[in-house]
C-alpha cells in the first residue's frame, strides 16, 4: 500500500518537467466537445450522488400502496413505482449506488490488475507465463457469465456483486499494465536505474508504473461505464442489490412486469443508466484522444 501511495506523489513530481505535455493533453481534452459533454454528464451524476438527500423530493423507500403505478404528475415528476414510491427520488438515490459500484469495482480491478500485470511483465519467464495463462482462463468466460458464477458462489447482494464485477475486470487491467511494462522494461533509463543499484520494487513503482497510467486512466473511465451496465444487469436479474435499495437495474427488474400497464416505471431508470454510461464513454473516448493520440480509433 505504502509504495502505491508513493506512486501518486511520484506522478505529480514527474508531471513537473512534463507539464507542457500534460497541459497539451488537457487543452486537447477541453477542445473536444463530446468529452466536455461527457464531463458535464459525469459531473451532474456525481453531484446528484453526493447531494442526494438534499435534492430528492421524497423518501426513496417510503411506500404508498394506494398510489402505486401512478403516471408522472406535478407532485411526482417521474411518477410512482409498483409500490407507490417516488421514482425520481429513487433514481436520485440510485446514483449513489451506481457510482459506488462503478468506482469501487473498477478501483479494485485496477489495483489488483496493475499489481499482477506489473509483476508478471517485470518478472517475465515462467511467472509471466503462468499469470497470463490464468488471465486467459478468466477471459475464456463471457464476462457477465463469470460474474454470474461468482455471485452464485458468494450469494446475491450489493457487495458480492461489486467483488464479482471487480474480479471479472482484472484481466483487462493486468494485460494493459503488463504490455506497458514490457514496452518500457528494456529502455535505457531502466537500465540506468538498475545500474545505480535501485531495487526492483523502486524501479517498478518509480520508473515503470507511471508509464502505464495513461492507458489505465482511459480504460478505467470506460470500465466504470461497463461496470455500471453489468451491475445493472445483475441487479435486474435479482442477483445484485436487493430490495428495497433504489438501484437502477433492480428498479427495472422489479418494474418489468408492469411495463405494459405503466411503462414509466422502466422508462426512467433505464434512461438514467444510459445517460450515465454515455457520460463515462464520452469522457473515456475524449481522454483517449487527448492523452494518447496513438490509440485513436
Amino acid at each position, binding site marked *: 500500500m505504502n509504495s502505491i501511495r508513493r506512486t501518486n506523489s511520484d506522478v505529480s513530481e514527474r508531471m513537473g518537467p512534463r507539464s507542457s505535455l500534460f497541459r497539451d493533453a488537457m487543452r486537447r481534452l477541453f477542445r473536444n466537445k463530446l468529452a466536455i459533454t461527457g464531463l458535464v454528464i459525469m459531473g451532474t451524476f456525481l453531484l446528484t450522488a453526493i447531494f442526494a438527500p438534499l435534492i430528492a423530493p421524497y423518501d426513496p423507500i417510503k411506500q404508498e400502496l394506494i398510489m402505486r403505478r401512478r403516471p408522472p404528475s406535478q407532485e411526482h415528476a417521474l411518477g410512482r413505482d409498483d409500490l407507490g414510491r417516488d421514482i425520481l427520488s429513487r433514481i436520485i438515490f440510485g446514483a449513489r449506488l451506481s457510482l459506488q459500484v462503478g468506482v469501487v469495482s473498477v478501483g479494485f480491478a485496477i489495483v489488483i490488475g496493475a499489481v499482477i500485470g506489473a509483476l508478471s511483465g517485470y518478472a517475465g519467464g515462467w511467472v509471466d507465463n503462468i499469470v497470463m495463462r490464468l488471465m486467459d482462463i478468466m477471459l475464456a*468466460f463471457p464476462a457477465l457469465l463469470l460474474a454470474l458464477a461468482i455471485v452464485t458462489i458468494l450469494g446475491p447482494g450489493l457487495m458480492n456483486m461489486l467483488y464479482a464485477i471487480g474480479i471479472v475486470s482484472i484481466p483487462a487491467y493486468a494485460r494493459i499494465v503488463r504490455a506497458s511494462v514490457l514496452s518500457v522494461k528494456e529502455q535505457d533509463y531502466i537500465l540506468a536505474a538498475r545500474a545505480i543499484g535501485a531495487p526492483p520494487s523502486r524501479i517498478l513503482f518509480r520508473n515503470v508504473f507511471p508509464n502505464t497510467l495513461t492507458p489505465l486512466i482511459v480504460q478505467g473511465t470506460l470500465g466504470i461505464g461497463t461496470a455500471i451496465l453489468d451491475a445493472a444487469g445483475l441487479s435486474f436479474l435479482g442477483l445484485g442489490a436487493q430490495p428495497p435499495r433504489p438501484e437502477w*437495474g433492480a428498479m427495472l427488474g422489479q418494474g418489468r412486469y408492469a411495463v405494459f400497464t405503466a411503462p414509466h416505471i422502466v422508462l426512467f431508470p433505464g434512461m438514467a443508466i444510459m445517460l450515465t454510461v454515455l457520460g463515462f464513454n*464520452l469522457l473515456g473516448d475524449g481522454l483517449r484522444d487527448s492523452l494518447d493520440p496513438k490509440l485513436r480509433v
Partner: protein
Amino acid sequence: MTRYIIRRLLLLIPVLIGISIVTFAMLRLIPGDPWEVMLGEHATDAAIAELRERMGMDEPLPVQYLRYVESVLRLDLGRSVKTNRPVLQEIGQRLPATVELTLGALLVACVVGIPAGIFAAYRHNSAFDLATMFGSLLGVSMPIFWLGLMLAYIFGFLLKWLPPSARLTIGVEMQTIAEAWGLSTGPTGPSSMRIMTADEFFSGFYVLRAILTGNLTALRDVLSHLVLPSVALGSIPMAVIARMTRSSMLEVLGEDYIRTARAKGQTEKGILLKHALKNAFLPIITVIGLALGTLLGGAILTETIFSWPGLGRLVVDRILSRDYPVVQGCVLIIALIFVVVNLLVDISYAYVDPRIHYE
C-alpha cells in the same frame, strides 16, 4: 497453416483444464453445505447423505476433481436437483434456442452495422456520419434489457407489429424434422443412458425445423418472434461493428490505390465494395469475433426479458432455485462454446491474413 492450427489447439489445453477447475470449484466454494441448500430446509439427513454420496463428496478433493473430469469426458454432467433429469438433457433442450437467438443478433448487427459504417465513412462528416456515430455511442451505453423492454412495449404492445415474447405462438404446430422426412428418430439406448435423440436436438432449431419441414406458416411465426430479441441483443455488436467499419474504411479510403481506382474511372460502388471494403475487412472480422462474448453474456438478459427458453434463462432460473449442478453444467458448456468459437475466429484470421501464421 497446419502448424499454426496445431499450436493453437495445444494452447487450448491449459484453458480447458482451467475451465474445468473453475466449474468444479464453483460447487465446492458455495458456503455452507450446498447439498442442504439445494434440497431445502426440510431435507432429511438421509437424503442429504444420499446426494453427497451420489456426488462423491466424501472423497479427497483431487479425487473428486478427477472424477468430475472423467464424467465430463463421458458427457455426464450429473443430474438436476430440481427435475432429476440429466443436466446435459436440460442443456440440449435449451441450447438451440440460444444459438438461434445469437445468430439472429449477429445477423442484425452485421446487416445494419457494416453498411452504416461504410456509408458513414464514405460521407465522412455528413449528417449521416454524425448520426451513425451518435447512434453507435448510444448503442454501447444502453442497457440491452431496457432496450428489450422498450421494444417489447412499443412494437409488441402498442403497435402490435411483432410478438413481444416466446419463440412460437401457442397453437402453431410443427412436425419434427424426422417425422417430416420419414426418418427414424435416431438410435435409442437404454433409458438411463439416453440423453436426447439427434432429431430432438435439431428440431430445437425452430427456423431450421420450419424450413426443413416446409412449414411456411410456422416459419413466418418463428421469424417474427425472433426479430425483437435479435434487435435488442444485436444492438451492442451493431454499434461496435458500425464504428469499426467506419474507422477502418476511413483509413483505407485515404490510400493511394483508391485514388488510382478513381482515376482509372472505376465506379464509386466498385471502389467502395471491391477496393476499399476488401482491405478494410480484417478489423471488422476481429470485432465480429469479439462480439460473441457480448452476445453469449447478453443472451442471459435478453432471454429473461423475452421469455426465450434458452441457456441464459436456464442459468438464471436455476441460480435462483439453487439447482447448482445445472448452473455448473451451463457455465461449462457456454465457456466451451465461447472458447471453440474464438479458436475458429482466430484460425479464420490466419486464413484471411497470411501475416498471422508466418509469425
